[in-house]
C-alpha cells in the first residue's frame, strides 16, 4: 500500500532547481558585464567557469536540504504549477544565455 505524498518535497526540489538555474544565469550575466567580477571568480575558484559551477550547485544542494526539511509535511501549491514555472524558467534561461552571447559578439 503506497502512502499519499505531500507536495512539500517536490516543491523543495523545484525550488532548488529554480534557484540553481537562475543563480547560474545571474553569474553568467555578471561575468560578461563586469570583468572584475569574472576575475574575482577566477581567482577564488581557479577558473570563472568552475566558480559558476560550484556556486550554482552548492546553492541547489543548500536550497534542496533547507526547503526539504521545512516543507516536508506541507502542501505547497500543486506539482503542475511548479512544473510550469520550472519549464518556462528553463526555456527563458536558455534564450537569455544564448541572446547574451549573440548580442555580446555583435556589440564588441
Amino acid at each position, binding site marked *: 500500500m*503506497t*502512502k*499519499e*505524498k505531500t507536495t512539500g*518535497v*517536490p516543491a523543495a*526540489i*523545484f525550488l*532548488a*532547481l529554480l534557484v*540553481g*538555474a537562475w543563480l*547560474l544565469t545571474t553569474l*553568467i550575466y555578471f561575468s560578461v558585464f563586469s570583468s572584475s567580477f569574472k576575475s574575482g571568480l577566477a581567482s577564488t575558484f*581557479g*577558473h570563472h*567557469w*568552475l566558480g*559558476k*559551477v560550484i556556486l*550554482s*550547485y552548492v546553492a*541547489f544542494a543548500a536550497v*534542496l536540504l533547507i526547503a526539504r526539511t521545512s516543507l516536508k509535511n506541507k502542501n505547497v501549491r*500543486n*506539482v*503542475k504549477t*511548479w*512544473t510550469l514555472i*520550472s*519549464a518556462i524558467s*528553463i*526555456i527563458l*534561461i*536558455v534564450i537569455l*544565455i*544564448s541572446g547574451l*552571447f*549573440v548580442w*555580446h*559578439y555583435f556589440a*564588441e
Partner: protein
Amino acid sequence: MGFGEILSLSHGFLGILIIVGLPWALAELVALKDLSGVKRLKIVTLGVAICALLSCIILAAPTYIVYYPEAKAEIKAGPTPWVHEILMEIKEHIGLLEPLIMLSAVFLIWYYSDNLLKEKDSRRSIMVLLVIAFLLAFLEMGLGAYIAKTGPIR
C-alpha cells in the same frame, strides 16, 4: 591519441548515452504499469543523471579548462571566430543546466516511487523535465559536434 582527445571523446560518448537514455526513460514513464517499471525508470534516470554529471561537469572541466584553450586560439584566429564567441560560450554555460534538471528528475522519481503508478500529475511533471533535458542534450550535442569540427581538441 592525446589525453585531451580521450577526455573530449568520453565527454561526447556520455552525451550520446544521455540522448539514448532519455527517450528510454520517457518510454518507461509513458508505459508505467507495475512496480518493475518503476524500478527500471529509477535505474535509467539515475544512469542518465550520472552520465550528465560526468559529461557536463567532471569531464567537461579538464577538457574545457586545460585542453580547449589551444582549440579556442585556433578557432579565434580562423575565419569563424563566432564558433567560439557564440556557440562555445552558449554550450559551456547551458550545459550546466543538464545535470541540475536530471538530478531534479531523479529526486522526484525516487520520492514518488510507487506512487507514480497512481499519480498522473507527478508522471506528467517528470515527463516535462525529461523532455526539456532531452532537447537541451540534443542542442548541446549539435553545438559540440560543430565546435569540434572547427577546432578539434588534441
